[in-house]
């Protein structure tokens, strides 16, 4: 392949730009190994559990540890509180609340008003949206166009490998909960 003998241009030739574009597309789809993030976190915060409670900062974990020592005494007073709570819960369950909006209708309204497509089930979505204090972030990224089909959006198979810009709505738990396509791929003129 490293034959340096110049050849004549013809059907056996192609612009170097085409080869580079193809390699750039392939490279753009490579992702870091899944275990790398855990390896970094383990090095950064060796005492941090990898899954449960990983969103807590160090002061938050210390508070949790202090509260943990008081829990056994608190439980001594919890019998009556548990009974009251059970009574309240049964009243809440028996109350004739209006029927909640169906997940599909809520999803349709969300898509119509914001362009976001939920990536979680209706139940999970209602849980997340019900809590206005929960933080979330918008993360701009690029996705292979073919991923649009996986979430039910139309796409052109002839351009399946091209990236498309999208915003991901990421919950504090780390879950990506919704996606919005915002435009054409980056990579135009510099």
């Amino acid at each position, binding site marked *: *392949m490293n034959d*340096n003998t110049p050849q004549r*241009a013809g059907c056996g030739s192609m612009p*170097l730009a085409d080869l580079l574009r193809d390699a750039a597309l392939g490279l753009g789809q490579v992702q870091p190994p899944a275990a790398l993030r855990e390896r970094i976190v383990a090095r950064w915060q060796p005492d941090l559990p990898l899954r449960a409670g990983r969103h807590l900062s160090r002061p938050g974990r210390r508070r949790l540890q202090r509260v943990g020592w008081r829990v056994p005494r608190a439980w001594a007073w919890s019998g009556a509180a548990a009974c009251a709570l059970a009574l309240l819960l049964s009243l809440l369950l028996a109350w004739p609340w209006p029927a909640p909006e169906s997940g599909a209708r809520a999803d349709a309204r969300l898509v119509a008003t914001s362009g976001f497509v939920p990536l979680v089930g209706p139940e999970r979505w209602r849980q997340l949206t019900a809590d206005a204090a929960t*933080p979330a972030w918008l993360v701009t990224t690029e996705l292979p166009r073919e991923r649009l089909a996986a979430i039910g959006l139309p796409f052109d198979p002839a351009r399946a490998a091209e990236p498309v810009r999208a915003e991901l709505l990421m919950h504090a738990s780390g879950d990506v909960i919704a996606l919005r396509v915002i435009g054409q791929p980056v990579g135009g003129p510099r």
Partner: protein
Amino acid sequence: MMPFVPWSRPVADDTAVLLARLGAGDAAAFDVLYRREAGAVYRYALAMAGDAAAAADATHDAFVALATRPSGFDPARGALGAYLAGIARHALLALRRGAFDALDDEHFDADAIARTSPEDLQVRRQGRDALWRAIRELPWPQREALVLVDLQERPYAQAAAIAGCELNTLRTRLHRARQRLAALLGAVAQELST
């Protein structure tokens, strides 16, 4: 951090806020920064090293450095992605024991560079594997310019910042990288004469 309002407008660059939270040990902030930047850093390292383990190690070093000392990043000196790629670059060079393939690439010839875009350079028709083999044969500085600009589509200024060189030096390296790559891939005579 923003309240959960899915129909809001996209937030402005929140890197400073995330770094402040990272400094306080907030793993959620780390997750956001990692998801945002790790892919590009890893791909840069992989393209330069040609070895997934070395690329993972370099990316690891970059993010550990950021997480343990977020104040090391100065937004006035460039984007966070460039800062992280710069750390990964140092890690990769350390693996090579500093061997940098020193080149005489300071001579800047704007005319020559303008004449040879990758659109003009014709090579034999071949696949992606052949291209990667040829890229690996380029000297480090030329390979780096090609990876950053042609494969990662980074702006020239950011690529120069990562490579630690002047803008014109980067342009020269890129120009020579493209020419050398075309030669390695069997350049077509008609186009070489331009």
